[in-house]
């Protein structure tokens, strides 16, 4: 239980932190922090039941994809703005670094193993986004229509 609380706090902080580095628009910082935190919790919880690399990352990126698309509609910004900071705690950066370190040290088989691992993580994240986008395209158009209707009404008043 404590893991989830810490996970939420640090997932939030790291997404906001990366959002600051990449100069996200101010209005999207807090939402992307929440999306990142939820994805990080999903990653941890799925990791309890499945010790592989693929499932936790896949589920995490599906969550980011769906919530990111929702936020993109609500806050009127490109969806990439939500993907980039939320991804930062899931991406295979550390694994890629580890593999390249082994490569430079001459441990070829470890390097190849790490590289395949990095590719696997990256692939499962990318596939997760595709799945999420398909789902989002099916379920979010009503939300979009509602938003534009409300905006038109505001303009007419």
């Amino acid at each position, binding site marked *: 239980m404590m893991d989830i609380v810490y996970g939420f706090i640090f997932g939030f902080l790291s997404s906001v932190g990366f959002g600051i*580095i990449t100069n996200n628009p101010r209005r999207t910082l807090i939402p992307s922090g929440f999306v990142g935190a939820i994805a990080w919790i999903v990653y941890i919880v799925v990791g309890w039941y499945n010790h592989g690399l693929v499932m936790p990352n896949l589920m995490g990126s599906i969550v980011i994809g769906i919530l990111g698309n929702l936020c993109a509609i609500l806050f009127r910004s490109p969806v990439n703005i939500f993907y*980039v900071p939320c991804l930062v*705690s899931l991406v295979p950066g*550390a694994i890629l670094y580890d593999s390249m370190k082994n490569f430079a040290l001459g441990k070829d088989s470890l390097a190849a193993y790490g590289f395949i691992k990095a590719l696997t993580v990256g692939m499962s994240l990318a596939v997760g986004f595709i799945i999420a986008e398909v789902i989002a395209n099916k379920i979010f158009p009503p939300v979009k229509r509602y938003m534009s209707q409300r905006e038109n009404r505001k303009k007419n008043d």
Partner: protein
Amino acid sequence: MGTISERDIVTLCGQVGTILLENGAETARVENTVEYIGRTIDLPVVCHATMTGIFVSSEKSAATRIFKVRVGDFNLQKVDEINTLSRQFSRHEITYDKLKKEVQKVDTETPDFSWVIKCIGAGLVSMPPMLLFKATWKDLFLGFFVGILGYVVSQYVGRHTTTAYIPVAMGSLVLSTVAHILGVTNIANDANYIIISALMPLVPGVPMTNSLREIIERNTISGAVRAIDAIMSGISIGGGVIIGQILVKTVFGG
């Protein structure tokens, strides 16, 4: 809208595409936005974007322009502003001249976070991996500051050189030296955990994932370019870390 020359429109479209691509938008979005703007002005344009160049061509005549792009750091504020502008323009809320002026403005003056806030952001990014390793709170605390150090060094070096990959290599060299010194002097429990989490702002994890996304969307060339870029910066980071490790080991004898 007969007063605006086709060349002018094609140039503007190219500028919009360049800004989007340079600051971290994916190629599909760049092409869509540019073609959208063209359609709004009643001049259908074809846009083909790769990671190194943008080709914009008008469909009515032979006006074509090529723009060279050097993909740099993420600056998502610019992407968002261009997106807002193109939306307003396609709803005819702003005129062509206004759009042109605003695009120039976005290119030159966009608000950025101050140095101190960016450093704190880099520090915050350096924390979550520690949780996975079940590291001690002291290591977590140290990782925060070592992460800031690595980020500052890489940004500083980046301002003084145009050679690619040198900034990240220098950043990881300094960061690994400091982390290993902390490890040797027993201030930190495990230097490796600190290095991995402090590297988080530098490692090319997001470009790697984006490249695979582009490959899945069949933008194979951009995907491949991004992937090779990510692997190259991974190699330079790995090299930097190892040089730092060797330095510390020769000096302290570990």
